């Protein structure tokens, strides 16, 4: 089952009716039943992975909690130095359990998503030393959402270990947290406490809330069907016939791909946030108008926000504050004089892991790792060059706060992101390289005007629709950036205006949606991670 089907709407309706008629205390049970139904229908036997993950973190967290609780009781009877001893022991035990649970979770995702990737690395290493290819290439289908629920599970057990939350006693609640159907396909990554607290509350059917959720759902459908899938047809044609298209056409394709992935991913987020809102559950935002960012640092705080937050809390801080890093830091400090560079070392070290993990999370291939490190290198270069760029700007009498510089920063960020998307979209690192060199070696702008962009199934009117919907998207984003709440503003208009807008939006999806016939079957890009 997919979010963009009519069957899903029926599923929502049925779940909603059951949800709001259920007794308050077990309302969340309806969500669990619906989520499991959704999951089993998509995955069949692979549901076992989900259940195994839930079991691992449930058990691990409970053990950790038990150790902590026992310590809290025993410490009252002890002297200070005995307490310290006991504390150390307890911490060590907790660490082992947490680490074991996390390793098990990682093994599960490695054995499905990353099996062939690591298998090929091992094979290459082995054949280089003459041993041959011991690891077979298996055709493995990933369980739905494994990239998402694995990270959420790790965040849960780490939070229990850090005493940020207490372990959950009800295994079903934990299961719901992992497989909640709005966030199982493409996220966002929520943390345990905010979500479980909301699940436990009772929610009455609220007309305005349901209506607003519905509007957001429809807006997401618009972004996906009218913009993303339309752009996608052009992008797919160009990228799969690389030799037919010039560098200039590729630039258009890359821009369209950036538009595609943004509207599809953020559209999906609109759909799931709107859906969840209807049930009274608020899930985290993943996008905050990222293309208004002034730097790639800022971009990654506005794009796929929850992934960035997860990496920050569970990779960046732990690595940079870890004991073993302290030792490395001390060694490095002896060799560097610049105070500025010294201050950068902890970040540089930790960020390498962050970006490596970011890349690897997106996919089991060298291309994705390169994608992550692309941003790492650019960010580090930017940071390291900051004193120099400050001097240059001062000499040119340009202020970082000026309007002109602001626009320059936004455009620069967009260009960097588009090149990143070129890597992301290419079938492999080598295709990315050939596309990149092709842009400069074979620019040939005339091909754009000779009809190359009218790929099969695309009409000039399609570009017209793309342009209009892009302008609409830009306007709405700009208004939101300035602080306007679109749905609130809408609800204040008189009925004829409101209803006209809703009708136009709905029929735009039906009529201008890029589905059926010419348009290829589309899936969610981020659902394949």
């Amino acid at each position, binding site marked *: 089952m997919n979010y963009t089907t009519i069957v899903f709407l029926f599923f929502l309706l049925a779940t909603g009716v059951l949800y709001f008629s259920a007794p308050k205390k077990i309302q969340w049970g309806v969500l669990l039943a619906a989520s499991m139904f959704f999951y089993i229908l998509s995955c069949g036997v692979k549901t076992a992975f989900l259940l195994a993950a839930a079991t691992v973190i449930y058990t691990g967290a409970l053990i950790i909690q038990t150790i902590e609780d026992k310590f809290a009781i025993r410490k009252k009877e002890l002297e200070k130095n005995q307490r310290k001893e006991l504390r150390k022991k307890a911490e060590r035990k907790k660490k082992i359990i947490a680490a074991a649970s996390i390793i098990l979770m990682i093994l599960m995702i490695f054995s499905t998503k990353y099996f062939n990737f690591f298998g090929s690395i091992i094979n290459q290493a082995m054949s280089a030393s003459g041993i041959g290819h011991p690891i077979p290439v298996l055709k493995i289908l990933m369980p739905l959402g494994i990239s998402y629920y694995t990270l959420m599970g790790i965040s849960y057990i780490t939070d229990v270990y*850090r*005493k940020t939350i207490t372990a959950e006693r009800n295994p079903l609640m934990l299961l719901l947290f992992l497989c909640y159907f709005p966030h199982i396909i493409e996220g966002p990554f929520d943390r345990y406490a905010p979500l479980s607290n909301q699940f436990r509350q009772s929610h009455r059917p609220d007309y305005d809330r349901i209506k607003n959720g519905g509007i957001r759902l429809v807006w997401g459908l618009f972004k996906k069907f009218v913009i993303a899938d339309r752009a996608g047809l052009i992008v797919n044609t160009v990228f799969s016939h690389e030799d037919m298209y010039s560098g200039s056409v590729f630039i258009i394709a890359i821009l369209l791909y950036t538009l595609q992935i943004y509207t599809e991913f953020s559209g999906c987020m609109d759909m799931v946030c709107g859906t969840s809102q209807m049930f009274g559950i608020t899930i985290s935002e993943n996008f905050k108008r990222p293309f208004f960012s002034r730097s790639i640092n800022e971009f990654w705080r506005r794009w796929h926000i929850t992934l960035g937050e997860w990496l920050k809390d569970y990779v*960046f*801080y*732990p690595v940079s*504050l870890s004991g073993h890093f302290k030792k490395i830091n001390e060694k490095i400090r002896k060799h560097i004089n610049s105070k500025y560079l010294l*201050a950068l070392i*902890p*970040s540089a070290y930790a960020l390498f892991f962050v970006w490596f993990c970011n890349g690897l999370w997106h996919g089991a291939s060298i291309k994705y790792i390169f994608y992550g490190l692309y941003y790492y290198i650019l960010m580090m270069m930017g940071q390291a060059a900051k004193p120099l760029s400050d001097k240059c700007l001062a000499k040119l009498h340009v202020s970082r706060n000026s309007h002109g510089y602001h626009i320059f920063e936004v455009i620069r960020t967009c260009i960097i992101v588009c090149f990143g998307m070129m890597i992301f979209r290419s079938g492999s690192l080598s295709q990315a390289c050939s596309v990149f060199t092709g842009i400069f070696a074979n620019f040939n702008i005339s091909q754009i005007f000779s009809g190359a962009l009218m790929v099969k199934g695309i009409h000039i009117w399609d570009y017209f629709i793309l342009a209009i919907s892009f302008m609409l998207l830009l306007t709405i984003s700009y208004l939101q950036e300035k602080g306007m709440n679109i749905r609130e503003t809408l609800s204040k208009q008189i009925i004829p205006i409101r209803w006209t807008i809703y009708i136009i939006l709905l029929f735009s999806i039906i009529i201008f949606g890029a589905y059926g016939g010419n348009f290829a079957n589309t899936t969610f890009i981020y659902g394949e991670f």
Partner: protein
Amino acid sequence: MKELLKILHEIKPDVNFEGRTDLFSSGDLDSMNIIMLVSEINDEFDVDIKVPDIIPENFNSTENIMKLIKKLQDEEI
């Protein structure tokens, strides 16, 4: 407090830290600054700030940072 302000000014010379309550949430102290800050504080005040302590409430104002430091110094095992 004086030492804390000295550390803060070294990390970000052009930011005013006094009297504010939004240092973390405004983005003036981003995660990379936090790392530098934490490692300097750990050295200077002989405490061990851990990841769960890195939350907006603790770092939004200089007073709150001092409170965190004091809490860690006094902390019962």
